């Protein structure tokens, strides 16, 4: 029963992992850039939700769209000013530009918000639903539901809207997309803004059961990369599968190992996947 419970918990948190990682995979899919700073946008999303709660009394779940909006605009600006300039640069420049962004965002947050841990309190924080012999924690369920909703919204946007199709066209063949009159610069900006915005959204919905601090991103860096690499870097559907898988791996390994070693299991899975199937579990055979 403990195993079933762990799988259920894993699915719940895995849904959130999927959404925060979709942003990362989207940016890579459209621009070919691995954003090492992605987890910092999760941290920013958490802070937006925290201050919306502290100043406006807004529940983090309701503040999630606000977090999305704020970080969306920030992301558009960052794409315009920074990322755009290294799109054709060597990989080492791309890697260290985003690493530099990571350092700047983390320390800017440290300066602005202080180094302390902050958390919100909500009426449903400690409640849980009983499902036969299993329990579902309400904040987990709420975060999961919000993640599914945002994931579906993104899916519809990518499928049905002109922007979504234009973005996918740019990802597939930038030259052909350009010839069809698609402004690839604008598509890149949209993809990056949407990518970091979604991650911030995910940050807001997990705030009810986590605490936020400027260094919270560090906990999520390798986790997010494990998710996207498991599913195949650049694949949105892959990120969903990867997210659920990572959630389950994490909560199952919590049964067997002490808490400090939980991440170790994840790292080893990550290295193994990179070594054996770098195109992801869903990717074609090499």
């Amino acid at each position, binding site marked *: 029963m403990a195993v079933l419970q762990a799988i259920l918990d894993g699915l719940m948190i895995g849904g959130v992992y999927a959404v925060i990682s979709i942003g990362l995979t989207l940016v890579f899919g459209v621009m070919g850039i691995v954003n090492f700073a992605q987890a910092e946008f999760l941290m920013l999303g958490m802070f937006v939700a925290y201050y919306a709660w502290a100043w406006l009394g807004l529940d983090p779940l309701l503040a999630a769209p606000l977090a999305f909006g704020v970080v969306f605009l920030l992301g558009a600006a960052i794409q315009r000013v920074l990322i755009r300039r290294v799109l054709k640069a060597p990989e*080492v420049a791309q890697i260290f530009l985003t690493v530099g962004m990571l350092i700047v965002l983390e320390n800017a947050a440290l300066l602005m918000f202080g180094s302390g841990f902050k958390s919100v309190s909500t009426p449903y924080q400690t409640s849980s639903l009983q499902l036969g012999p299993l329990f579902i924690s309400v904040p987990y369920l709420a975060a999961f539901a919000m993640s599914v909703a945002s994931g579906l919204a993104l899916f519809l946007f990518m499928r049905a809207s002109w922007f979504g199709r234009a973005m996918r066209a740019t990802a597939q063949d930038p030259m052909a997309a350009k010839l069809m009159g698609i402004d690839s610069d604008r598509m890149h900006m949209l993809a990056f803004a949407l990518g970091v915005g979604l991650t911030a959204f995910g940050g807001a919905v997990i705030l009810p059961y986590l605490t936020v601090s400027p260094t919270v991103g560090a906990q999520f860096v390798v986790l997010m990369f494990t998710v996207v690499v498991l599913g195949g870097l650049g694949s949105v559907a892959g990120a969903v599968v990867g997210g659920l898988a990572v959630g389950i791996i994490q909560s199952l390994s919590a049964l067997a190992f002490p808490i400090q070693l939980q991440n170790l299991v994840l790292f080893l899975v990550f290295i193994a996947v990179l070594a054996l199937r770098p195109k992801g579990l869903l990717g074609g055979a090499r």
Partner: protein
Amino acid sequence: MNRSTLLRGLGLAVLLAVAVATPFLLDPRGYAIRVVCLALLFAAMAQCWNIVAGLANQVSLGHAAFFGIGAYTSTLLLIHFGLSPWLGMLVGAVLGGIAAFLISLPTMRLKGHYFALATLAFGEVMRVIANSWSGLTGGPVGISVPFAPPSFAMMQFKETRPYYWLMLAALVVVTLVFVAIRRSKLGYRLRAIKENADAAEVIGVDTTRTKITAAVISGMLTACLGTLYAQFQFFFDPDTVFGVASISVRMAMIAIVGGIGTAAGPILGAFFVIPLEEFANDLFSSRAAGLSQLVFGVLLIGVILIEPRGFMALGSRIRRLFGKGGRP
């Protein structure tokens, strides 16, 4: 030997003489000499990173793994067996080489972002192990190098000057290794991999073996520098020596700022970055934690945007501007 190589050799000899004599100009108990020591050490570390990243374009974000292995190995051997850090350094180098070999096996076929990600995770694995295996490493509280009567044999000195010469010697050795590799067959093979790995394979370069050889040399040297760091600082913890920002990224950044793939780049980079960071720390730390790191990040972004090939390329750009570079 023509005149320009002669002049160059002479210039290097003068530079080295000045470097050896510098500590006599600095207060032996002062702060400046410690900063210069750190700059020398980080220059050597960046040079190690340069062997793999600069020559073969395999961008590692996990070199802290080898550095930490070196620091912990010699220190633990000193604590438990009283072994001289010089011997501890050799053991650390062997372990660092083994670690580099092991991580090369699953990652050698990876390129670019994928390689960076895998090495990043490897460094983090080592940090997590060091933090949670408290029985061996002392865990997150850190570990102190036991004091011994100051002597060369125990790599401990009363004042800072001998450390300075130690760091300088390390930098010279690592730089010579880098230059020797670059000129050797191994160097040509590494560059062939950098330009086009598939083409290199086709013309008969054993790319796997070449990459592993370079990684092992780089890992061993980095581990040796970890020992020097431990003996210099006397105290460290897992998050310092295995840190992504504190070690892995800083090593890479120094090489990039100076000029990736060049022998002088890491040295220029270190003597720019380390004093700047120390200065910023000194200036701001009392008022605002994080500001000096912020400066570090802004600097990194600035260099990438302005000239991703670093000072060395910037220098030749400026020379060309004044018409001394030959070609217009």
